[in-house]
């Protein structure tokens, strides 16, 4: 039986900013249905890796294949069309619109109706689907409220919900619990994990918190100085003293 095609494959992916090596010969394969955590110290190249994959940065060399299709050189908009969606460390929302309207715009974009100028945005199909998305993320009670009224955890969830509404094949989350209080971070992660489990979306998430990574990921990639220094099951990888040293700067 032939091996399944990876959802994401990077080959010798490299990027430098002047003398700083942010990504160096990264070879990674992400398979269908995996929930992969990325850890590393500050400046280890985690976010650069996400920015390279999503087309925000162009690599100096190497290849990126999303479901077998080359994505190097494509802008974020077209990478999104290949089935990749991302959320951000600082939630990227439309703060002047309601929570539901934020999701409706994702649904409109996903349907390729972004510049439709006559039919209303509020149409039954999208509103029903938008409310369903918000319900999955526990945000339905906020649907008609302004984004500004959401607590930080809610904003994080909405940021992911906007990506989720694009019906992606691969979801990238950049520090989904950063800025969220210690009491709320597991609640946020439980909600996200449940949605991802039900929808079978392949997911990569960058996270500083090793406890979160160990608890929620099936596989972990450890970044250090732009390189992947460890790749495997969280329990064994994170127990490695060398890895802990790379992440925390101490054993």
């Amino acid at each position: 039986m032939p091996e399944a095609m990876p959802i994401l494959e990077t080959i010798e992916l490299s990027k430098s900013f002047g003398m700083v090596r942010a990504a160096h010969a990264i070879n990674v394969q992400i398979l269908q249905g995996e929930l992969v955590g990325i850890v590393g110290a500050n400046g280890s190249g985690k976010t650069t890796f996400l920015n390279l994959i999503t087309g925000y940065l162009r690599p100096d060399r190497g290849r990126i294949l999303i479901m077998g299709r080359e994505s190097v050189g494509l802008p974020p908009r077209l990478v999104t069309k290949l089935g990749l969606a991302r959320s951000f460390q600082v939630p990227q929302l439309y703060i002047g619109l309601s929570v539901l309207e934020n999701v409706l715009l994702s649904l409109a974009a996903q349907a390729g109706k972004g510049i439709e100028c006559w039919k209303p945005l509020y149409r039954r199909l999208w509103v029903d689907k938008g409310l369903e998305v918000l319900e999955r993320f526990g945000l339905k009670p906020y649907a008609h409220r302004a984004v500004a009224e959401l607590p930080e955890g809610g904003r994080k969830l909405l940021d992911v919900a906007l990506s989720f509404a694009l019906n992606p094949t691969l979801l990238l989350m950049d520090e989904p619990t950063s800025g969220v209080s210690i009491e709320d971070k597991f609640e946020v992660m439980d909600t996200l994990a449940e949605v991802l489990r039900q929808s079978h979306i392949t997911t990569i998430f960058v996270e500083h918190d090793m406890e979160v990574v160990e608890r929620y990921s099936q596989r972990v990639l450890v970044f250090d100085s732009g390189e992947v220094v460890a790749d495997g099951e969280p329990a064994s990888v994170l127990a490695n003293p060398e890895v802990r040293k790379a992440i925390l700067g101490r054993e």
Partner: protein
Amino acid sequence: MEQRLSRGSVAAIAGASVLFAAAPFFAASWILFILTLALAKFIAVLAVALFLRAGLVSFGHALFYAVGAYSVGFAYKWLGLREVLLLVPLGVCLGAGAAAIIGLFIARYRGVFFAMLNLAVSMILYAILLKFYWVTGGTDGLGVGTPTLLGYLPPRAMLRMSYYYVTLAMAGAVIYAVYRFLASPLGFFLKALADNEIRIEYSGASARRVIYATYVLSGALGGLAGVLAAFTVGHIVPEYAFWIQSGEFVFIALLGGYASVPGPLLGAIAFEFIRTYASKYAPYAWQMTLGTIMLLIILFQPGGLWAIYEAVASRFGRGGEGVERA
């Protein structure tokens, strides 16, 4: 926050519609002239206000106003054409066409570059209108033939009223179309543009396409406004494309309030009347009067005159929010 008109707003719209429709029966001829011009300019101001909602300001939309106006002048000069039902689509198409060409590169820019590039292009047109006098009439401008409607030439006594109703009907159609536009995905993306262009791109939509499509629409609106102004004034000069005219559109949008559709209408009417009265009673200080009013608006009510109306209406329990956010 789906937009629905409150009962108070529906009543306000109904009242305003009746007032506008009945104006020729009680308003003096000169007031009708000012109202007609205000309605025509309102359409151009609306085009500018669309971009203000997106956080972009254009100091060059007089270009499309001039394209519309000169399309009437040239159509009359070269083809003897003066039929409203032909000239209106002609001005709209030429305005939209000019925007479709210029927008190809202007849609790439944001902030001050967007503002100044619009100004630069409009000043190029102004210079052409001024210098190619053997074609454009230069500073003398062009005369416009008395327009006909379905081949019918209104009696002289009815001319002003006819222009008024044609302009009112067009303004009504534009209000409806712009409401539809603002309620559409493109309208929402336009508003979202002021908040977060990154998210638009990462949702797979194109911020540049949003700006481009809106630019073409704004060109069509500017063209229509120019056609109607040409009918009303009867004479076209290069100043239609001058930067002061563009600045006037921005001024009116801020005066009336650009976050709403009725705001620019209120602003255009107020502006024309303030200018008329100020230049009559303070002929050497009318610009200072306008400047002072703008200063007060920005300092104390940045939402413009429409926000003042809303505050008053909500105090009396009429709630104009449905109209404002549509």
